[in-house]
Structures are given as structure tokens and as C-alpha cells.
């Protein structure tokens, strides 16, 4: 594949698309349609977003093919500790696909199937997070050095503030926790946010001008020259 097809055309598409979206965000252009009151940039942005949705839908098919291929192979090879789950996964995909095609993805039948299987399981996995957090925090809250000592103190204050009996007995922890949340934590979070926002903008600019090609494959030695 030529360099133009692999690199230059994708970069051009990114540049033009980003420019249109930025123009729509910053500029107020006269409407071209009396009914929708949309400017040409707004109409174009809507179209671009719709293309994105269509492409994502096609990609989902690609994902389903990958999933089916991988798990069919596990079944045929009887991969140890995996193949029974692969059968189960393919069975579930078929049940959901058939139900969705037969009754529609917004039907009560499909919703019942989804809510009583995935929704319940999802809530279960989410709930298990509490145990993972506990074990993680148990290891982290050890006074090994100054930083972990600070974490231990702050963590202890936050736990005491959220334990009703302690908060009632020693109301000072409420004020201490509020101060920690409002001043040092917020300051640090905002610093991180500003840095992250500037980093994202810089990455966007690099991508627009074709210097950030991580998503296209890394630069070759010849291309590094600028």
C-alpha cells in the first residue's frame, strides 16, 4: 500500500473533519435550512456523526465475527479451561441475536432477556468492586514511607467521617474531611484536569497536522525527518 493511502489520506480526512467540527463549535453561521435552522457546518457535523455511527455499527459486525472465530476455535481445539465457556458464549450470542431479529431490540421480550441476565450480572460484578477496593486499600494503607503515611492518615479520616457512629462522637472529623476534599484534593484534581486538557489539545493538534501517527502505525526512521 502506498504511503499516500496509508498515511496522507487518513491524515487529510482527520484534518478536514476536525476543522469542520471546530468551525461548527466556534462560528455562528447563517442557517441554510429554514426548517431545521441549521448552518452548513451543523448539517455537515450531523452527517459526519451519522457516518461515525454507521461505521461503528459495521465494526460491531467485525467484532462479532472475531468473537465467533476465536471461540469456535477454542471449542474445536478443546482449549483447557476455556471451551465450555466458549460454547456458553456462542449460545448466548445466538439467543440474543435470534430474539433481537425476531422481536426487535426494543421489544419487551428482548428487554426482559437483557434485564434478567446481563443487567443482573452487571450489577453483581459492580458490587464485587467493594471487595477489590477493600483488598487494594488494605495493602495501600500501610505507613511504609511519608507518602503512604499521608495516605493512611487521610484515608483514616475519610473512613471515620463516613462511619456515622464516629462522626457523631467526634464531629471534628467531618470538618477535617470537608477541608481535605475542598482544598488539597480539589487543587490536585484541577491541576491534573488542566494538564490533561492541554495534553489532549496538543495531541489533537499533532494529530491534525499529521505528527501524531500512533493510530496509523509508528513513524519510520525516514518519516521522522519532518
Amino acid at each position: 500500500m502506498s504511503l499516500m493511502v496509508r498515511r496522507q489520506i487518513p491524515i487529510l480526512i482527520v484534518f478536514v473533519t476536525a476543522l469542520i467540527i471546530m468551525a461548527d463549535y466556534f462560528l455562528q453561521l447563517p442557517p441554510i435550512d429554514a426548517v431545521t435552522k441549521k448552518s452548513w457546518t451543523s448539517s455537515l457535523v450531523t452527517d459526519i456523526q451519522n457516518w461515525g455511527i454507521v461505521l461503528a455499527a459495521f465494526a460491531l459486525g467485525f467484532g462479532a465475527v472475531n468473537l465467533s472465530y476465536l471461540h469456535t476455535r477454542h471449542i474445536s481445539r478443546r482449549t483447557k479451561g476455556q471451551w465450555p465457556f466458549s460454547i456458553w458464549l456462542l449460545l448466548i450470542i445466538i439467543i440474543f441475536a435470534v430474539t433481537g431479529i425476531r422481536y426487535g431490540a426494543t421489544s419487551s421480550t428482548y428487554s426482559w432477556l437483557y434485564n434478567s441476565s446481563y443487567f443482573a450480572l452487571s450489577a453483581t460484578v459492580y458490587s464485587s468492586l467493594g471487595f477489590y477496593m477493600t483488598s487494594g486499600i488494605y495493602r495501600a494503607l500501610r505507613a511504609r514511607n511519608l507518602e503512604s503515611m499521608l495516605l493512611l492518615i487521610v484515608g483514616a479520616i475519610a473512613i471515620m467521617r463516613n462511619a456515622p457512629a464516629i462522626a457523631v462522637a467526634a464531629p471534628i472529623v467531618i470538618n477535617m474531611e470537608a477541608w481535605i476534599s475542598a482544598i488539597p484534593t480539589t487543587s490536585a484534581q484541577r491541576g491534573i484536569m488542566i494538564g490533561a486538557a492541554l495534553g489532549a489539545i496538543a495531541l489533537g493538534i499533532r494529530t491534525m497536522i499529521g505528527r501524531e501517527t500512533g493510530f496509523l502505525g509508528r513513524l519510520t526512521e525516514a518519516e521522522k525527518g519532518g
Partner: protein
Amino acid sequence: MLVTGRIFALGMLAVLWIFIIGGMELAKKKLPTFRRLPGLDALPEMMGRATEMNRPVHFTTGLGSLTESVAPQLVAGLAVLGYASEMAAKYGVKIIYSVYAAQVMPIATELMRDAYIRAGKIEEFNAEDQIRYLSGEQFAYASAVQGIAERERPAANIMIGPFYAESMLFSETFFRIGAIQLAGTARGYQIPFFAVVCDYLLIAEEIYAAGAYLSKDPLQAGSIRGQDLGKIVALILMFVGVVIYAFGSNALIDLLKM
């Protein structure tokens, strides 16, 4: 013509653009120096460990898709994926990329194939086995990644991108199986979770600089200098804002609302 309330933002964007282009031009004359990012420097150590243990390396870019506001984090993660794949190919280690958004699959396939070609090991690349679409649902994806961790016992786990509640599920599971971990995200609420469990951490802007840091491309490195100048401007604005507000002036607030 310009949308009210976004004029200042446009001005700041223009200033940042100038800084970044300026930084790139300066970098052509003199390469800027980076402070070390231990997380990225540890990649060879992670690959070496995987080679010694004869186990794979697991990579995830979290729950990002290319059509959401977190897309830059995903792009940043993909840049590291390309580098890590090339290194894994050189070390002869299998790298498994768990995909959340199916739209990323063709990009990842191209990226990893390129990496294997560059390493001269294209015959070892197996897209179907190494790039795995798991699910587009958060906890189904999380469970599938945990399944990979438990069944295939990767020696290293790299997580760079947008992460949500699953961050702790991933980091704890991989910790339990003894994997060395590098995590990076710009999602503030997940940073502490990664910080307490993972061996190496990239905080927010560091993930965006990862591509430039790893590629050693002078122009990309120059853009980081421009970004840092933007940070200085933001700090000056904050300082000036606090001072003039303390003296009763709303000038900066009005300017920001322009």
C-alpha cells in the same frame, strides 16, 4: 460570527496552536529534554519478565471509543500499543490486546501488524488470537479481561486509556496473578486506584506525551514543549485571576465569558 462565550476559548486555542508549532520549529534546531517517565522506561523490563516467565503481555485501552470525548486517551493508548507490540515481537512475547470498541479493531490490527513487520516477525503475528473483541458492555468486558488474566496468567499488564469502575477490578486481578502493571489514564477519579495497586503509573497528561516520548520524534517532542508553555499561561491566568478577584475585579471572569 463567533459564538458568544467561546471567543476566549478560540483565542486560547490559537495561542496554544502557535506555541506547539513554535515548539516544533525550535525542536528542529535543538531537541528538548524530557523528564523521565519511569512507567514507559519500564516497558523493556515488563517484556523481559514476560520472556523469562514464558507468559503473554496483556494490553487494554479501557472503555474508550473513537466517537466520544475520551477518544484522545484512546489514541494515546494506541500509540503505546504500537510501541509495546514492536517490543513484544522483538522479545518473542505474545501480546494480547483486549478490545472494548469494535471500531478500534481494524486500527489495532493495522498498528500491530506494522509493529510486527518492523520487528521482522510478521510470521508470529496472529490477529485473531492477539486482538480480541470482548464486549461493548462495561462489566461484560471487565469480566472477560479478568477471565483472560485468570486463564492465561499474563506476566505484565498495560492499561492506558479511559477507565471507569473496572479499573480496580483489572488492577487487583492482575496483581493477584503476580503481573507487573503499568497504568495510565486522564480520568481523575481512577488515578488513585491505579496509584495504590499498579507498579507504574502515568498521570493524565503523561499518557498524551507517551507517543512523543516513545517515538523520540523531535517534532513531537517539540510539541510537548509548546504544551508546557500553555500550562504556564494557564498558571499565570489563574494567579492573575485570584489576585484581581481578591481586589474586587471581575475582569478576568468577564474575559473568560467572552
